């Protein structure tokens, strides 16, 4: 209902101080009740041995009352199960996330953050330190590109018609969660964007800021077997303490439905990775708002590969690579690394200072204790974890 179509009484009420905020609250509570009573969502994540409906309603109403909007990850976190993530655990995770962010600020105003967030400078640092990472081919702007090695500026017409074949992945320099990224291939005067033929104007039309074109990473067959269209990466969190970096928790992100990106927010699945054995554990989880809705899978929905026990290659080498890179960076105190696996070994795609806690919380809420202990933030949380 548009604003003009609302009854006069409602429009008049909107002028009362606090009425709009109260309206938002009421809508949040309504959405929470809908979420709690939606049988589709409850079934999507299992729903066996779950809390009764009245408890789910109570949980979500309390959440909406506290935060003002419903919790879309209620089922993904397993908060609907009697043995799943409890509210107390979620609030602890929230405190941990706040503490991680506070430490980043304390360490120097997001200073080291710029090196991690700017994909261009990150790739430069990785290359000079000799850490395997995708080679940067060009910087892109709305009107043209700057080819690197050797540097030469080109218009998009010039880029498409130039003789050197290019096969890479373009992404915003400061982007996150795969937003704006696209695959670009140029060969024999023809360009393909995300696999579709495209002209110079189409390529330029996809670039709405500063972009980076990196060479395509050839994926290890074991990762390609899960979902060949996307580059499936491991999110590994390392913690730096007393000059030593140690891995704490990891998960694998796998693309789905033929998507080119593996991000959870873009419809990909997440699966737990045991960093001791190098094998996946548990089920693949899809985020609720994604295409197809939230769901859990024993096997990849497209390729049928069973997740639990699936062994990934080069996991010890990947852990060592992340350890060394974090130590070289000297900060921030925790980094979430995105690691790809090529036929010859691991490859660092990017590092994230503000890494997403919810991925790991959805897979295994038990990761909090080792993380808090390893990072030494238990003292700041005002409690000691068992």
């Amino acid at each position: 209902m548009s604003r003009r179509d609302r009854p006069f009484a409602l429009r008049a009420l909107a002028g009362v101080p606090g009425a709009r905020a109260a309206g938002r609250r009421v809508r949040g509570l309504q959405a929470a009740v809908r979420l709690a009573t939606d049988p589709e969502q409850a079934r999507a994540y299992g729903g066996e041995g779950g809390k009764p409906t009245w408890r789910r309603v109570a949980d979500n109403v309390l959440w909406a009352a506290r935060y003002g909007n419903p919790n879309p990850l209620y089922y993904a976190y397993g908060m609907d199960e009697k043995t799943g993530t409890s509210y107390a655990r979620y609030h602890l995770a929230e405190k941990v996330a706040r503490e991680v962010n506070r430490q980043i600020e304390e360490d120097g105003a997001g200073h080291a953050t710029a090196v991690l967030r700017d994909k261009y400078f990150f790739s430069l640092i990785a290359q000079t330190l000799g850490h395997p990472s995708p080679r940067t081919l060009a910087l892109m702007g709305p009107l043209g590109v700057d080819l690197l090695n050797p540097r030469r500026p080109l218009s998009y017409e010039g880029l498409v018609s130039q003789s050197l074949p290019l096969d890479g992945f373009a992404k915003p320099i400061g982007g996150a969660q795969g937003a704006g990224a696209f695959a670009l291939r140029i060969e024999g005067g023809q360009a393909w964007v995300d696999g579709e033929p495209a002209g110079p104007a189409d390529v330029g039309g996809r670039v709405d800021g500063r972009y980076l074109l990196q060479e395509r990473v050839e994926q290890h067959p074991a990762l390609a077997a899960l979902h060949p269209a996307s580059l499936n990466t491991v999110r590994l969190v390392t913690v730096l303490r007393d000059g030593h970096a140690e891995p704490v928790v990891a998960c694998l992100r796998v693309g789905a439905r033929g998507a080119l990106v593996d991000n959870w927010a873009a419809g990909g699945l997440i699966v737990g990775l045991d960093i001791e054995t190098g094998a996946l554990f548990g089920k693949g989880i899809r985020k609720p708002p994604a295409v197809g809705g939230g769901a859990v899978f024993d096997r990849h929905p497209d390729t049928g590969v069973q997740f639990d026990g699936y062994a990934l290659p080069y996991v010890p080498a990947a852990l060592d690579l992340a350890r060394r890179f974090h130590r070289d960076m000297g900060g921030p105190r925790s980094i979430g690394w995105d690691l790809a696996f090529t036929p010859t070994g691991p490859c660092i795609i990017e590092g994230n200072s503000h890494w997403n806690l919810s991925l790991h919380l959805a897979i295994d809420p038990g990761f909090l204790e080792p993380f808090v202990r390893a990072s030494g933030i238990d003292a700041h949380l005002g409690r000691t974890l068992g």
Partner: protein
Amino acid sequence: MIRSLVRAAQRVPLIGPVFRTPPSVRRAVRLATDPALSQTYYPDEPRKGRWRVVGENAWWALRHGQENKFYFAYGLDRKAARLSDVLPWRHFKRLRNSGNETPGVPGNYNYVCLLRDKFVFGQIAQSLGYPAPRTLAFLDADGVEWIDPRGRAPLPSLADVEIDGFCKPFAGIEGAGAFAFRSGGGALWIDGSEATEEDLRDRLHGRSLIQERLEQHPDLSRLHPSSINTLRLVTALEGAEARPLSAVLRMGTGGRVRDNWEARGLAVAVDLATGRLRGDGMYKYGLWGGTATHHPDTGVLLDGYPLPMIDEAVRVACRFHEDLRYIHTIGWDIAFTPGGPCLVEGNDNWGLPLVAALDPGFKDRFLALYEWPGGLSRRPSRPAASLAQASKTGLDLPPR
């Protein structure tokens, strides 16, 4: 009698502070009256009277909350000079930081760490193909970590490796914590003197890096051979293009290895149009303050002395600045080797006094970089040629 009354009033709660002289004013008066600290840098020009100098310093301290240590270096004791000829430090700092530390991209972060972390700076310069000193290794009290090839070794093993370099902390400023380092044949040398492993540990505060020693161009060595004499070049972004704002050459004195002004170095203005030094050299304020027409150790006449490859130095610094587009102004430290200029450091937190004391037109050029919607007495809104405007040009990648 009056003094006793004032002292009594100072002790009265609530109104006492009104009768107390602010510490900055006391320091300003001491600066203006101490014969050692109040030497003029311009002995040939008519000077203001003593009471006027004291009054101006006290007024400056009251108005800006801190004394003007560079009052004499700025030449404000000359009759023709006015206090408004120079920017107060706080005012300058606010302007400089508004352009350099404001996030240029969505998110709460900025890009100054690319300059402040000397290791990151060196690696980025190297990977972009700009000349910068090569980093050989990281160093801390536990050991040494070699960069190429990668490997970690205990600290004592350093003595067996032939190194001639410079050791500095990751994030030091004004040369603090830096020292010349040499090793080989089982021995270590710090600042030219033989040292033990313990001496080296004592000099390391946190993580440091060892960079290769630069071979200096003979024209710079002629001025003072034992220090690497560097050009401080300030560049500013105007749109997507960087331009030089001011340049000063710093040189060591007394056989010291550092050229910093703080380490009794001598600074001379550089005329970027001719590539020559301009005017007399100047020491920092203090007991060794004053000017020099010739270098005190080598006797080289400073005014008109030609610097090598100055155009190349400006071109390289501006190109690098264009790659660091979210930092509005940068103070570069540039060394000159026989092969060309070498970017030793870039500083987002570059200092005002060095350039303001030697470059009379600096204030106007600096203020022109910012927009002043409410007049000069109000805060500027942003750098005049803002980054937003730069990105609207579409291809905000300057032609090479």
